[in-house]
C-alpha cells in the first residue's frame, strides 16, 4: 500500500530542481496553473507539454512516476473528455450517434480539457516529487501570509496541510488493515451489484473515519502537551533561502505565459 502512495512523495535525485526554494516551486505551480487555464488550443497544449518535459527531465525523475500520479484521476479525466465530446457543439460534425452528434469542436475541447488536467497534475507532482513535504507546507504557510490581513490564519492552514500529509500513509495503512480483516471474514466485491459494492465500501469507510477522529484527538493532546497554542507565535526550525536561480526559475514562466496567451 505504502509503495502505491504517490501523493506527497519526495524522490531524491539531487537535481537542481530539487535545490530550488519551495516558495519558488509553489509559485511556479500557480503560474503553470494560470498558463494551463489560458490554453485553449492544441498548440498551447504542445508548448505546455514541452515546457513541463524540460523541467521533468531536469528533475531526473522517471516519467513513469508522473504517470502513477495521474493514474488515480484517469476516470475523472475520461469523464471530462467524454462530457465535452458529447455536449460541446461547434465546428464540423464528425459522427451522428442519433441521440448525440459529435463535433470537431467538441473533440478539440475534450482533448484540450483532458490534457490541461493531465499537465496540471503532472506539474504539481513535479513540485511534490522534488520538494520535501515539510518544506512544501512551510512554503505554503509563508506564501499564504498575506491572508492574515483579511482575517485568515496562514499558520493554521499550513499546519492543516502538514498534518494531513503526515497522516496519509498512516490512514492508508489502517484502511488496508481493516480491508484485509473484512476480506478474511468473507468480504467479496466482485460479482456484486454496484449498490451492494457501495454499501460494503461504506463499511470500510466508517471504521477508517472513526479511527481518523481518534487519531486526531490523540494528536491534539500531543500537540497541546508540547505547548502548541492556536495563533500563538512560533519560531521556525527550517529556514528558507531565496537564491538567484529561484528568480530565474520564476522568470522562465513569463515567456510561457506570453506564448500560451499568443497561441
Amino acid at each position: 500500500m505504502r509503495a502505491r502512495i504517490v501523493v506527497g512523495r519526495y524522490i531524491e535525485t539531487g537535481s537542481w530542481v530539487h535545490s530550488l526554494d519551495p516558495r519558488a516551486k509553489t509559485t511556479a505551480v500557480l503560474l503553470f496553473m494560470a498558463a494551463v487555464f489560458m490554453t485553449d488550443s492544441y498548440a498551447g497544449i504542445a508548448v505546455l507539454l514541452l515546457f513541463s518535459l524540460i523541467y521533468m527531465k531536469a528533475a531526473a525523475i522517471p516519467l513513469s512516476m508522473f504517470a502513477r500520479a495521474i493514474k488515480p484521476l484517469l476516470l475523472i479525466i475520461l469523464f471530462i473528455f467524454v462530457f465535452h465530446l458529447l455536449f460541446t457543439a461547434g465546428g464540423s460534425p464528425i459522427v451522428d450517434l442519433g441521440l448525440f452528434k459529435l463535433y470537431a469542436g467538441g473533440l478539440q475541447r475534450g482533448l484540450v480539457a483532458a490534457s490541461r488536467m493531465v499537465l496540471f497534475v503532472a506539474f504539481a507532482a513535479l513540485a511534490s516529487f522534488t520538494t520535501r513535504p515539510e518544506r512544501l507546507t512551510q512554503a505554503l504557510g509563508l506564501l499564504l501570509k498575506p491572508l492574515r490581513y483579511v482575517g485568515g490564519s496562514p499558520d493554521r492552514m499550513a499546519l492543516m496541510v502538514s498534518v494531513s500529509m503526515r497522516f496519509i500513509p498512516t490512514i492508508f495503512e489502517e484502511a488496508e488493515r481493516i480491508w484485509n480483516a473484512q476480506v478474511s471474514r468473507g468480504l467479496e466485491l466482485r460479482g456484486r451489484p454496484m449498490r451492494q459494492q457501495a454499501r460494503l465500501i461504506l463499511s470500510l469507510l466508517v471504521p477508517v473515519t472513526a479511527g481518523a477522529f481518534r487519531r486526531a484527538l490523540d494528536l491534539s493532546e500531543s500537540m497541546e502537551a508540547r505547548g502548541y497554542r492556536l495563533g500563538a507565535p512560533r519560531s521556525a526550525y527550517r529556514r528558507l533561502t531565496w537564491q538567484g536561480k529561484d528568480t530565474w526559475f520564476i522568470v522562465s514562466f513569463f515567456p510561457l505565459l506570453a506564448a500560451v496567451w499568443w497561441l
Partner: protein
Amino acid sequence: MDKRKLPPALRLENVGYRRDAGAAPVLSGVSFTVPAGQWVAIAGRNGSGKSTLLRLIAGLLPASEGGIEAAGTRIGPASLSEIRRRIGIVFANPDNQFVGQTVADDIAFGLENRCLKPEEIERRLLRYAELLEIADLLDRHPAYLSGGQKQRAAIAAVLALEPDIVLFDEAGSMLDESAKRELLAIMRQLREAGGYTMISVTHDSEELLAADRAILLANGTVAADGLPSELLKSERLLEACRLQAPYVLQVCRALRRQGVDVDDYLTEKELIDALWPSGSIMSPVAGKERIFGVL
C-alpha cells in the same frame, strides 16, 4: 545528561475528577507526593483512572476537586504554559503523537512552540537524537519507522523540551517484547541519569518492579502505595489490579507448588542465591530435582 537545577516535585491533594457534573467520579481523594528524581509507577485495572490521573498532572484535563502542584506550580488555566515547560508526556500510541512529517520536524515542533532560535533547536535536536540513538532516522517519515523507533522518537521529542517531570502513559503497551525491553532500558537510563522525576502508568509488572515506588489504583482511589518489591508480592493486590506477577515470582510460586522450599523472590539473582546458597550448583535446596520440571 547534566541539567536540572530546580528540585521538581509533585503534590496531589484530594484530587478528584468527574467527566460531567452529575457523573460518577473517575478519580476521588487521590493524594500523594513525589519527591524530585523519583520514578513512580502507577498500575491498576482498565478504567481505574490511571491515564486520567496522568492527564490531570499534565494539565490536559482540569481536576474537578483538590489541587495538583507540579514542579512548584499549582496547575490551573493561568499556569498552563509554565506546566508545559516543566512536564512532558509520552503517550501510548506513538503513531498518533507525531505532528511533523519527519522525525526531525517532530522533535523540533515543541521547540518551535517555545520560540527557540533555529541554532538552539538544532543543538537540542541532535543531542536528544544521539541520546535516544535515532540520529540516523531524523529525515525519515514517522510512518516508516518500527514501533520501538517511533517510541524512541516520541521520547526524544519530549526530552528535547527538557522537562523536570516526564510522564509515560502506557508507553510500552503498543510495542512488541523487544521494543518494550528497549523502552524499559531507556527509562532506567533516565532514572540513573538523575534529574528527571518520572511517573509511568503501566500494566507491566517488570516496569513496576523497575520503578522506585508503586501506586496501585482501584476504582479511582489509591489502593496501595509503597515499594514495588513489597506490593508485587501481594496476590490480593495483583489480582485487584489485574497485574501478572513478575516472571521470577511466578517461577518461585511454581517451584513451591512442585514442593521446592523457596520464598517469593523478584530477581533472578535472589532466586539463584536461594536455590544454591553456597553459590555452587552442587549444593541444592530440598526438592531441587523438581526445578527443571518447572523451568
